[in-house]
């Protein structure tokens, strides 16, 4: 056997077969229930936003990879995942150009300026959403009622296309979609005026836990359906793509203070179930905070990280200027990851105190 025909590498010589594309595919698959629900709940505009955002993200990735001379520019599908995640955090009638700006921002400034996948400090989709929220507050906080894909109020495809691209319906009329605050927004504004939680969510607003569970409430595209998101999250844990540490600690981080304050003063602080089912908590806990690149690698670090995300979300929701704080909380906690990783090293074999 001549030396050149045998490959020499360091051990191990076998591999489990996991790959980054496989991880990305699995996460995208896990997002499918929530994505489908978003189209069912919000109709054609949701699909258009998803397509525009994802396509922009992938195109940006493609160009960047070409510039950097990398083969198979879209091979790992991470840009597609970022695009879908970003779309799911946008309001149902977000104009096309906001989607485009968001998609470009996520990939270009959220990822490539740091050196590409693996080097970014912040979750690209979330940093783009935060950027959009600060830059275009009006577009990012208008919440039309869910009209469904097939219902009577549902917009036709042409109307949807026109609405997203021009801001009015195909007939030239302005869309007469009824806008209303999200449950968290309603709570934020009304309780902020000194009224009780009951007054805010009851009465005309008529908040329903069942709707929040299935997803037929106001909110961003992919955040409303608790059941669809939970389904995807459990799938990810079962597939061992994510571990339980971050979701569980994030839920604990928000539900524990929520329970305490609710017991102390139920008229001012809503119950923990409300916090769990509304806003982007479940989307954030299963899909955003668990982003591998921007979360700690050590189990203890993940628990602290998750708890921090949950706690910050509760603080922002309850006392902050914005009604919803999941994005901000996760982005802030992203910044602590290097520190968390450094100080939460597991105890190495043979170095436990009982051994010394």
């Amino acid at each position, binding site marked *: 056997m001549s030396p050149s025909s045998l490959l020499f590498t360091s051990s191990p010589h076998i591999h489990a077969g996991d790959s980054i594309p496989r991880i990305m595919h699995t996460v995208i698959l896990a997002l499918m229930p929530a994505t489908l629900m978003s189209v069912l709940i919000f109709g054609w505009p949701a699909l258009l936003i998803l397509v525009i955002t994802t396509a922009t993200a992938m195109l940006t990735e493609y160009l960047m990879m070409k510039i950097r001379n990398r083969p198979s520019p879209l091979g790992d599908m991470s840009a597609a995942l970022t695009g879908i995640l970003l779309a799911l955090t946008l309001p149902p009638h977000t*104009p096309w150009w906001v989607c485009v700006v968001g998609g470009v921002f996520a990939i270009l400034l959220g990822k490539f300026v740091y050196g590409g996948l693996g080097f970014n400090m912040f979750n690209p989709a979330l940093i783009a959403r935060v950027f959009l929220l600060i830059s275009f507050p009006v577009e990012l906080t208008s919440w039309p009622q869910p009209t469904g894909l097939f219902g009577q109020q549902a917009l036709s495809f042409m109307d949807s296309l026109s609405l997203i691209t021009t801001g009015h319906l195909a007939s030239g009329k302005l869309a007469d979609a009824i806008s209303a605050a999200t449950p968290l927004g309603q709570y934020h504004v009304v309780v902020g005026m000194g009224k009780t939680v009951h007054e805010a969510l009851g009465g005309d607003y008529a908040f329903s836990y069942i709707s929040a569970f299935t997803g037929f409430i106001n909110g961003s595209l992919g955040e409303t359906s608790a059941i669809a998101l939970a389904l995807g999250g459990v799938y990810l844990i079962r597939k061992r793509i994510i571990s339980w540490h971050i979701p569980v600690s994030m839920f604990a981080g928000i539900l524990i203070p929520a329970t305490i304050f609710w017991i102390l003063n139920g008229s001012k602080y809503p119950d923990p179930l409300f916090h769990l089912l509304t806003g982007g908590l479940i989307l954030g806990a299963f899909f955003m905070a668990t982003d591998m690149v921007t979360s700690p690698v050590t189990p203890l670090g993940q628990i602290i990280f998750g708890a921090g995300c949950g706690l910050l979300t509760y603080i922002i929701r309850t006392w902050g200027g914005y009604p919803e704080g999941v994005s901000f909380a996760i982005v802030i906690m992203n910044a602590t990851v290097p520190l968390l990783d450094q100080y939460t090293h597991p105890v190495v074999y043979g170095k436990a105190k009982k051994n010394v």
Partner: protein
Amino acid sequence: MIEAVLSMGGLALAAGLGLGFAAKKFHVEGNPQVDNLTALLPATNCGNCGFPGCRPYAEAIAEQGETNIGLCAPGGVEVMEKIAALLGVEPVEMEVDTGPKVAFVREEDCIGCTACIKVCPVDAIIGANKQSHTVVAEMCTACKACIEPCPVDCIEMVAVPTTVYSWTWNKPEVLH
């Protein structure tokens, strides 16, 4: 929407124009030879040449009278010859780094004069008057101090061979 696009686009345009204008307006005319030399050097800025980087070395050659064009170890003979061609000077002898070396006494030629023993700064050469000397390889620092004094030129620098005991793993090469 239009306002947003216009304002952001305008801002970007203004900044871009400003930068472009500044680059032209405040452009400092460099010695073209420096640019030519810099282009030949490997741009690693490794500092092996004794200058803080590739451009400083180029400046030293072009402007400060540095005459040794063979200081760029990473570029090797190839780069040195290109520089020689560019400047129209003779190529110089270059020491190619081939790993660690030690002094070695060809014992059959050694006359036992102890000249090398006297100059060795770490007493790494052993031997007595009129007896062949030898270099203790583990102690030799490859300073070459012993080469000059030898009257019969029997000391040379030899490469330390890599064995299974001194071999080290290379760093994995990142392929994309």
